């Protein structure tokens, strides 16, 4: 654990990423305390530019809603959607990949053809179709994002399991009478964990982007304030009030960048041998 931290902190980008993410996380958690009022509430005149009223440092939008409150509440939505949808995607992808890789043969064929069925449809188009069918609530947004993002997990886990199952310690477990389920859960998957963790951190970033894109198109939950919705609502006034698109855009950029930096740092820390050599 100690050496893990040493390797992780050896990558300055990863540390910066972690700091940004912690800030975003703190903002998301404290949003209901700092901005107890609903972010949908009209509080000032519309189009108040940033840094003009001390009570609303980032100004107001086209309907006079507080931009800062919107960003804070949006942080919670973005992180919740990113994390939960990734957990759901892992819950689908890991078992599919593990079963396919461990049993091989027709199980592998069937599961992989099923996975490819999802992979052949452009993921964003599929997410739009799913949300057009479902109710656009936060829960269904999460489900839609999970459904389009599990196939890469299944692929990765299958590959790892394929190589691990031929290792001698797995064969020894077979000989010692352990059941296939025990072997997958206790021998194989713990050793496949590092790449899964790295992929998961990057998937959170993709999910945040996907949620923003869906909200931008007006397909998100209309009852929650999200960064994508803020950009979408402000796009018609981008020439007169550019900051209304720019500020939530920066929030998305920083969060996604932080997650990518963390993913890279985790990769270096968990796979020290694959680490890129310092120049």
């Amino acid at each position, binding site marked *: 654990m100690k050496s893990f931290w040493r390797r992780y902190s050896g990558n300055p980008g990863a540390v910066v990423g972690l700091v940004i993410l912690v800030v975003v996380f703190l903002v998301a958690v404290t949003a209901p305390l700092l901005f107890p009022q609903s972010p949908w509430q009209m509080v000032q005149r519309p189009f108040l530019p940033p840094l003009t009223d001390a009570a609303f440092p980032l100004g107001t939008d086209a309907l006079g809603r507080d931009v800062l409150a919107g960003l804070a509440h949006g942080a919670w939505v973005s992180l919740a959607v990113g994390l939960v949808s990734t957990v759901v995607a892992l819950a689908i992808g890991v078992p599919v990949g593990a079963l396919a890789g461990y049993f091989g043969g027709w199980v592998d064929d069937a599961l992989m053809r099923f996975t490819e069925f999802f992979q052949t449809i452009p993921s964003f188009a599929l997410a739009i179709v799913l949300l057009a069918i479902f109710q656009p609530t936060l829960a269904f947004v999460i489900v839609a994002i999970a459904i389009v993002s599990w196939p890469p997990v299944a692929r990765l886990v299958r590959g790892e399991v394929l190589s691990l199952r031929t290792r*001698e*310690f797995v064969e*020894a*477990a077979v*000989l*010692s*009478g*352990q059941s296939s389920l*025990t072997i997958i859960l206790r021998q194989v998957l713990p*050793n496949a964990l590092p790449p899964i963790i790295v992929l998961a951190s990057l998937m959170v970033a993709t999910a945040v982007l996907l949620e923003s894109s869906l909200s931008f198109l007006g397909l998100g939950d209309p009852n929650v304030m999200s960064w994508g919705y803020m950009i979408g609502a402000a796009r018609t006034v981008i020439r007169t009030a550019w900051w209304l698109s720019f500020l939530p855009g920066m929030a998305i950029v920083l969060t996604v960048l932080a997650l990518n930096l963390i993913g890279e740092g985790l990769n270096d820390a968990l796979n020290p041998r694959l680490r890129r050599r310092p120049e």
Partner: protein
Amino acid sequence: MSLLRVENLSIALPKGADRPFAAEDVGFDLAPGEILCIVGESGSGKSMSANAIMGLLPEGLDVVSGRILFDGGDILTRTEGGLMDLRGARIAMIFQEPLSALNPLMRVGAQIAEVFEAHGVLRPAERRTRALELLREVGLPDPEQAIRAYPFQLSGGQRQRGMSAMALALEPEILIADEPTTALDVTTQAQILELIEELRRRRGMAVIFITHDFGVVADIADRVVVMQTGRIVEEGLAEEVLHRPRHPYTRALIDAIPRLSRAGEPSEAAGETILKVEGLSKTFGGGGRLFGASRVVHAVQGASFELRAGETIGIVGESGSGKSTLGRCIVRLTTPTAGRVLLGGDDIAHLSGAALKASRRRIQMIFQDPFSSLNPRARVGRILTEGMIAYGTPHIAARTRAAELLELVGLDASAMERFPHEFSGGQRQRIGIARALALEPAIIVADEAVSALDVQVQAQVLALLADLKARLDLSMLFITHDLRVASAICDRIIVMQRGRIVEMGPAARILRDPETEYAQSLLDAIPGRDHERARAAL
């Protein structure tokens, strides 16, 4: 007049390693046309010393003192560019594992031509002709074909010959061979040793040969340097060192080599038959494929033999002879295509489900690689108890038993709380043995169980196995490519070639007087035989 002189070379290990120096105060001379063997166990610093000569030390390891004199200058003071002029052109190297040393995506001919290209010699058309000549010189059977082959299309011995051709391309004065035969079969090893000897004779090239095997030393070395934990403990002419080793470590290394000339005691183990293999065959591939015909490999064909209680049978053969597949079919890690494996009336080859699980605990396996046979994320206690718990032993009883097992194989019970990476190769193999014994099997199948270990550790593990076998009344199938190891532990020997059993009989008889030519060729290929005969005659 020495060609290369290493003086007081010390290479520092990173902080936190088990010792401060990878190599400490190492010094030796290399005369033109001489074969110098650097011998030692793994971790003795022998490869590091050679890598320093090529300027190929891994990151984090630095030369802290000493000089390497070659061609009137110190190699260590050369710049990267200066080293590049040296590498390949004047000092060349061949490696242990030719499959990873060759680029898998390049044809062999192109890789040899690349050497000329890197040093800017010859015109493109000449490079190919020269590559062909080189391949012929290193004795590849069909150079015209080999030059167009990718590395994976060649056998291990052919790849090592290809590597040698690359190393010889620019007619270097020194060839450094880092365990070039360790990954090869005995027969192939004998051919490569002959090749190196012949090249030395024909070209007057000096060779630094790094090995852990004193048998190899006896066959080719002029002079020997023995290294232990980074230091040179003995140096001298090969004859001297082999016959009159002065340092106790050298003596221990030489004594640890299993002897073929074992007293030919008759196998008294005439217990009842415990395992009967009948007409066992295993064929890989052959399933109908959508595109193209698939390749069919007959890994094992019609193997039949009986194992009696308390007996050890050695299954010997080169790689690809089907000996491992046979072992895996017997423990049912692989399902045989045809034949029966009778274990006390049950045919394991055709059991499934609960019946298979019930039979399985009576036949257990010890694996080859002590590094991949233990789950790196599980503590030793868990590794040992998992099997017992799977068969319904209560948790606490299983832990008590695991502690007993650890003591049985010569480890402390405190090992339970540690992870596999905290142990050495030999200790890990002991843990693997303890795991195999946990289910109280009647039969142990050991697949190359000591092949990955240093000679001294190998001798200890073999002694442990012999002791356990006697104490626990085990029967054993001992799969190995090394006849010396087989002779140390086996009552009977089965010789396999291309999937078939070609010879079977008492160990003493096969080692003294084999019936088939193939078994004889395996015996002849054992390195250091002449030396051993000379020793036995004394």
